[in-house]
């Protein structure tokens, strides 16, 4: 009967291990409850027809057949890509220049400008909606329409026409996220040694040459990070189209997340909503894989720190 002794010693070891697990458990418990379970349940739900109240009814692949035969679903994918590119690409370029300017020694009140450029990110989305509702107003006196009228362009229905909707939403995305990315770039730029710029200046390099030959190459990992977070973020685009278009969500501006949200919470069709979520899941997985592939390749080919 030596057993008790042995188990006690074991349990001490175990208890250390256990306490470690217990300490990291909050994340895992929360992730299981709010992340893992809903994810698995969506997979399950995508094979059922369910209105949220009545019993679920197994329908096999019907939900997928439905969404793949729905032209609005294709529009939503297309819109997501288009708005994503229109909102992200110019934003990264602009953020890069803004960050360069804020990093420059020539600008006074740099901290004030840094705060100001970050402000849109923390602005209440409802306030953003009101402001952009005024800017992209359908009436001739709306800000954007008034501006265009100076060039003899007749009033545009910003919330209903194919390209204008996308431009309006992309502008909102641009405005809201440019400051965030600027700050990330700025952090990256501050880690670039000043000597490089000084040397370049002595050699007579212009500002643009400095950006092209020093800043951008040194910033490559950060640029990669921003590009990929922005692309994946743009796939989750939801609030902007919702507040700009209202709960009706016209086909011209609907995004994938907005599409599945509308299915679930307006049409009470949780099955098709889950099916759309699964499709989105695979799109994002694919993009992340591409992301990893590219970053790995960059990491291997050059020594970047």
């Amino acid at each position, binding site marked *: 009967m030596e057993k008790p002794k042995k188990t006690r010693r074991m349990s001490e070891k175990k208890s250390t291990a256990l306490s470690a697990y217990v300490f990291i458990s*909050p994340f895992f418990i929360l992730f299981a409850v709010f992340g893992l379970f809903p994810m698995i349940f969506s997979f399950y739900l995508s094979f059922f027809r369910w209105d949220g109240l*009545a019993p679920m009814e197994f329908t096999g692949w019907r939900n997928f057949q439905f969404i793949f035969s729905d032209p*609005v679903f294709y529009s939503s994918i297309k819109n997501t890509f288009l708005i994503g590119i229109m909102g992200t690409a110019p934003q990264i370029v602009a953020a890069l220049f803004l960050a360069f300017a804020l990093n420059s020694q020539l600008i006074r009140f740099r901290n004030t400008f840094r705060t100001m450029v970050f402000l849109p990110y923390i602005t209440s989305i409802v306030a953003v909606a009101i402001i952009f509702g005024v800017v992209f107003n359908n009436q001739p006196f709306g800000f954007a329409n008034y501006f265009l009228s100076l060039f003899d362009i007749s009033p545009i229905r910003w919330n*209903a026409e194919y390209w204008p909707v996308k431009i309006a939403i992309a502008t909102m995305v641009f405005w809201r996220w440019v400051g965030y990315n600027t700050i990330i770039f700025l952090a990256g730029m501050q880690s670039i040694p000043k000597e490089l710029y000084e040397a370049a200046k002595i050699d007579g390099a212009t500002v643009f040459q400095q950006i092209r030959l020093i800043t951008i190459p040194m910033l490559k990992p950060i640029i990669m990070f921003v590009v990929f977070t922005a692309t994946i973020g743009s796939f989750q685009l939801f*609030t902007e189209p919702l*507040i700009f278009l209202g*709960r009706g969500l016209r086909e011209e501006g609907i995004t994938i997340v907005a599409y599945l949200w509308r*299915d679930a*919470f307006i049409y009470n069709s949780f099955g098709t909503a889950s099916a759309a979520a699964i499709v989105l899941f695979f799109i994002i997985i694919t993009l992340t894989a591409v992301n990893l592939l590219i970053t790995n390749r960059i990491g291997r080919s050059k020594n970047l720190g």
Partner: protein
Amino acid sequence: MSKFLKLAGVSVLSVSLMAACGGDESSDAATNGGNNNNEDNSNSDTTEETIGDGDIELVFWEFGNTGYDKLIEEYVADNPHVSINLQNSDMNDMHDNLFTSISAGTGAPDITMIEEAQIERYRNAEDAFTNLYDHGASDVEGEFLEWVWKNGENAEGNFLFGLPTDIGPTVMFYRTDVFEEAGFDSSPEAVSELVKTWDDFESVAKEIYEATGKQMTDAGELVYNARRDQSTEQYFSPDGELIIEEHNQIKDAYEYTSSLLNEGLVGDIPLWTPEWFAGMGDGTYATMLAPAWMQGVIKDNEPEEGVWSITTMPEGAGNWGGSYLAVPAESENPEEAYKFIEWLTAPEQQLKAFQGYGLFPSAPAVYDMPEFKEYEDEYFGGIATAQVFSEAAQAVEPVFKGSLYYPVDDEVKQAIDDVAGGAEPQGAWEEAIERIKRIIER
């Protein structure tokens, strides 16, 4: 080890509490202001208050500014065995929470307020609610307007979801100055006589446009709503079949709206936009076909008295807004809950709710009460406004809506919006029908 567990337990708890407190900020008050029958729904904070100290506690979810706390105080004073925990939250949040708790089968209150448009969402969930007929609701049926009562029933008429509180009968608000400028007599009687039918509405619109250059009304949406609400058949039949193409009433309403839009007689000013609010004060449009609760909105945007007045709408009336009180099936005290809501929706209490917060009563007995009848509003030229609204309330036709009523309605609205943007009406209609069929197929 137990110390570790305790510590860990506490940290898990606090983290999950923090997570639970993170609210959803994206409630789109601006786009949904229309579904609220109270004037202020911008406050999304949840407030909670327990009134009375009886042993039987009833949890009561409400939204908007109802002033029910005052009435509850009266009730618990007379019924000391009951206490009521009143929780007020944002309208959309409250309905979403109710949907989630019913779907999960736990967490629903003893009494919940349900907005008239949102009740359609719960239509298929009879199991989740107490049939108020089982508690003697048929005894009070006669106290309410027939169409309001019917809307709280299931299609067969043997299950009652809720007792009606207030309603939103629609009338025609009009600007006296624009009517005078166009050479019309602007008294409510004269305008009511002048715009008796929808054809009159169109011809008056033309005259006003020629004389003043102003448009008859704000947007196609409210014209369409007015005509839609006067239809005896709308989108669905009581057995849930889509009948939008089986009869002409909806198509007629749509075509009427489109033709007014094409003639340029109706504005293209969407509801709840800044220019729509501004238009009320500037007189950009001559009339607004809107419910009783719109009075407050108009008063906020046109401070001058006597500019706006009220008269009946051509060819009848409609309803927009109002609420019901329901008892979810989970309630442990359905009997007490029912007793309370029966009391709260009785005519005497409805009069008080009207006097306090302008909730328009659904019980016609109130319309004959002198305090209600003699209520005059200086702002609208000193006319007995309550009477105009009560006439409208009695003219509403009962109609079956169905659980997908509002998604379908949104698609028709989108077609109207397309027409306003220059699309060809027939094509826009066909596209809307396509979209509607896809919604139903889901």
